[in-house]
């Protein structure tokens, strides 16, 4: 038993055990529940820190359980999984703080935080999955753990949103499972290998491989909200704000996008995916999703709905970067996994604060909110500018590498217009919000203002998470060239995937 074969399991357990324990707690044991939550979140951050250090220094970590001959549950750490694990762990810590503040005094908190922990457990599980089987297992677990969170409020709208979510994701999971089983029957156990597991095998039927690719991508595309599989995401905005943050930035949508990256790079490999002509189709779907999501976002007055369509659009940057062959586009796509997560979670935290503090749910109610809630609105502003791709916020770095990658791959004639149209559309649905918030005169009364004492505009547990994530979004753009930055880490990933 050394660290190298227990660390992945420990990371999983650090949220699984607190989660299970929380289910058993009485509703009023607030202190104990909060302690368990925070203990799990902080322990995970420390463990992941060790793992990041180890992977950077070329150590390998692997936990393997053999369930049956040829059926292994494998958790391991490569550069790509560490990137996603670090993202979800860091953001989970902040979301936990936020959720504790957000749900203070509401019923069913033990149920909520129990599933909350399971959700993150499933996410890090699929992030560290070392083979396709393990990935599918955690992918389905994630679906089941998230459903009660979306339905948490118990209102008819919440239940309906959650049902739609479940119907979409279970169907997607089924397709993914069929694809995975089919692949297993023709190619044996599929481990995730940098450069592609299938690239070493020859004599496989290209037609079957194409069908399997389609099944896998459709299955993953449901969670990644590729058009036309995105219908559940705007419906799921009925969930409480911390859950929305989790759905959009940390867990669900990201799991789909991450899965697409895994399938293209580590199952098929860039060469095979190139020869099978699979990527242009994925690229076209991603481009359509980017534009469609942004156009839908324009006409939403409901703030969270606008943000939801924005997610539909922005997450497809990851798929787009994956669909363009070449290391620069890979960097752009994969780094957006992190950048989009940090920027979008900021936006949802802020949206939650507006709703919680002033009862603001609609864009049209946001006039003059900047003066009333400057910290939250500043965070929102930074994140929104980043989404448009304005330097030096993180989003610019993604966009720049996607642009470079498109030129490198010779597909600039359609990718650059997509990027530009998307930036203009992002500007068109974010800048009016900023204009209202900062430059318009506040109404005489807010829709539902909470009267609070205190020096800050909000309780600290709700104010600091968006401020921290916004600062982070700015910092990782401003210091993108620094060691250990997401960009540098992604460059490492791209170098390994392309064997550079």
């Amino acid at each position: 038993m050394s660290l190298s074969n227990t660390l992945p399991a420990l990371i999983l357990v650090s949220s699984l055990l607190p989660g299970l324990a929380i289910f058993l707690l009485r509703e009023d044991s607030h202190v104990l529940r909060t302690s368990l939550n925070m203990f799990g979140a902080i322990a995970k951050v420390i463990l992941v820190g060790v793992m990041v250090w180890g992977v950077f220094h070329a150590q390998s970590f692997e936990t393997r359980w053999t369930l049956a001959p040829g059926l292994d549950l494998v958790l391991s750490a490569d550069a790509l999984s560490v990137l996603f694990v670090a993202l979800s762990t860091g953001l989970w810590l902040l979301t936990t703080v936020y959720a504790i503040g957000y749900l203070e005094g509401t019923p069913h908190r033990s149920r909520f935080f129990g599933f909350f922990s399971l959700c993150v457990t499933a996410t890090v599980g699929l992030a560290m999955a070392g083979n396709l089987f393990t990935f599918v297992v955690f992918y389905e677990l994630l679906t089941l753990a998230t459903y009660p969170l979306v339905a948490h409020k118990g209102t008819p709208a919440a239940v309906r949103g959650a049902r739609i979510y479940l119907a979409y994701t279970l169907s997607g999971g089924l397709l993914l499972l069929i694809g995975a089983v089919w692949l297993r029957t023709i190619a044996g156990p599929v481990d995730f290998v940098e450069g592609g597991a299938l690239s070493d095998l020859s004599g496989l039927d290209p037609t079957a491989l194409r069908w399997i690719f389609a099944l896998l991508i459709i299955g993953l595309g449901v969670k990644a909200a590729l058009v036309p599989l995105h219908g559940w995401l705007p419906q799921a905005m009925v969930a409480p704000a911390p859950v929305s943050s989790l759905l959009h930035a940390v867990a669900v949508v990201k799991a789909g996008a991450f899965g697409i990256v895994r399938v293209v790079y580590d199952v098929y490999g860039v060469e095979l995916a190139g020869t099978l002509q699979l990527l242009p189709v994925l690229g076209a779907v991603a481009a359509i999703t980017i534009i469609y999501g942004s156009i839908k976002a324009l006409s939403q007055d409901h703030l969270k709905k606008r943000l939801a369509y924005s997610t539909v659009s922005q997450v497809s940057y990851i798929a787009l970067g994956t669909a363009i062959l070449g290391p620069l586009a890979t960097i752009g796509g994969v780094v957006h996994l992190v950048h989009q997560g940090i920027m979008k979670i900021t936006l949802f935290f802020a949206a939650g604060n507006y709703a919680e503090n002033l009862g603001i749910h609609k864009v049209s109610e946001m006039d003059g909110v900047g003066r009333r809630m400057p910290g939250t609105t500043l965070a929102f502003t930074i994140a929104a500018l980043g989404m448009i791709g304005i330097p030096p916020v993180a989003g610019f770095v993604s966009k720049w590498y996607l642009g470079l990658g498109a030129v490198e791959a010779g597909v600039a004639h359609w990718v650059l217009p997509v990027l530009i149209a998307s930036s203009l559309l992002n500007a068109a649905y974010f800048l009016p919000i900023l204009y209202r918030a900062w430059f318009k005169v506040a109404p005489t009364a807010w829709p539902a203002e909470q009267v609070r004492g205190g020096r800050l505009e909000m309780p600290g547990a709700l104010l600091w998470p968006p401020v921290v994530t916004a600062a982070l979004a700015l910092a990782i753009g401003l210091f993108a060239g620094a060691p250990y930055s997401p960009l540098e880490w992604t460059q490492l990933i791209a170098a390994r995937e392309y064997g550079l």
Partner: protein
Amino acid sequence: MSLLLDLTMQLPGAAVAPLMVLTPLLPLLLAPFAFTAIGRWGLALGVLPALLTALLVPVGSALDLSWVMLGVQLELDATGRIFLLFSGLIWLATGLYAATGPDRQHVAGRFALFYQLALAGNLLLILAADIVTFYVGFALMGLSAYGLILGRSQRARRAARLYLGFTLVGELALFSALALLAAAAGSTRFDELAGVPVSDAAVALLLLGFGIKLALPGLHPWLPLSYTAAPLAAVAVLSGPMMKAGLLGWLRFLPPGAPGLEPWGTALLFLGTLGVVLGSLLGVLQREPRAVLAYSSIAKMGLISALFGTALTQPAIAEPLLTALVLFAMHHLLVKPALFLGVGVWQAGPARVWVLIGIGLLAASLAGLPLTGGDAAKQALKAALNGQVSLLLVVSAAGTLVLMVRFLYLLAARAPRAAPFSLIPLLILVVLLPIALWGPFWPTEIALSLDGLVPLTMGAAVAAVAWWLTQDSPGRVPRIPPGDLYHWVARLRVMAPTLTWRGAPDLGIAATATTAARPRGTQAELTGAGLAMLVLIALLLVSLLPD
């Protein structure tokens, strides 16, 4: 040759790097304090390291900040030094003016914040020695200027909205162009760009991106609206340093002599000439002093664009021509903001007759009358051009002269604004006057030349004829509101409502609240932005396809 003194020996080597870093950094550091007591005086403080850098740091000093953004490269080259010095002077004068002028009670806060951000962007792009840093500076400057234009009036808000639409399109064109350049060169460093062929798509996008900043005809409607509606201090920095950043962009990314640039040079020569003619014609018809100055900027930038196009078509004379062109641009960079600040001082201040005489001298310098810096800059251009495009120079000078006469006439006819007596803005103008009048030359370098009298007679003749034709019936003078194209498109929109796309993206910000009050204006802003977007997309599609 120019105002640059050789003081570079005075600076210990260890101070070079901190000074260069502080140049863009100090305004950024001051920005968060915009809302505090420091905000007002910070307007003048932020630019000081830039001026020290321009005066003291030796040319060729470079810095590699590899961990900032995508690897920031800073370098002070000869061109950058000239831009830095004169841009810095204008930012300093404008900052002092804003801190002490009639609006001094209102500058702390939003204005100070965006002023510092725009300043930081301007300084960063001048020192940038790589593509991404240049782009970051250019975007920061361009987008922050939105907050400067955005005054309290409805008119200023409309102007700011239109400005933002055009600027966003410009940024994105530039983004695409620079991605094409960087991918072709395999590097973002300027020194590794040299010799890399520039694709037609990249050239078109560069002309578009910087052309919006330089208000090429067709890309100009934002300019007269901003110049007439924004606070004067904002207009001063817009019309001087920020506008010239567009020229610096062309100088950095379109080296004459690179293969395939000649046809583009011809196109630019044509467009620029159109700018000279249209700017002068539409400018004379304006009824506001500021609007005349705005169209005069369009005409001057047209001339600069045309001459840059000439340099592209004739690489043989490009080097001396571009050197002269930079001096010419620097002259405009100094005079135009000085004129705008002069308008502010004249409206508010004491010693009105003397101020008007000062403004008259500045106008004479802009028109290139003998013994002014404008004349010296024109002579430098003529020498570099060997007698080519001399007709354009004469037409431009005559046009400017007529515009300046019109400007002075309109200004003198205006009733002054009642404002409290303030001495400092007047002093700023007094100090700025000789610099703008002769800059970027030493007074000793100015030789008496009577060439300037040719356009003078021509301009006078044109003005006399025009006056004679219209004096009996002022109604025969067509009324062209500032922003021409914008208003015509707006009118077209009203006549053909079916063209309106109901769910049109609200590019220029928030239609819902204002639509009811001013449906026409809002639609038109969308159209302006939409048209520019169409141009961009069409260019992209057309020029990217064949390769």
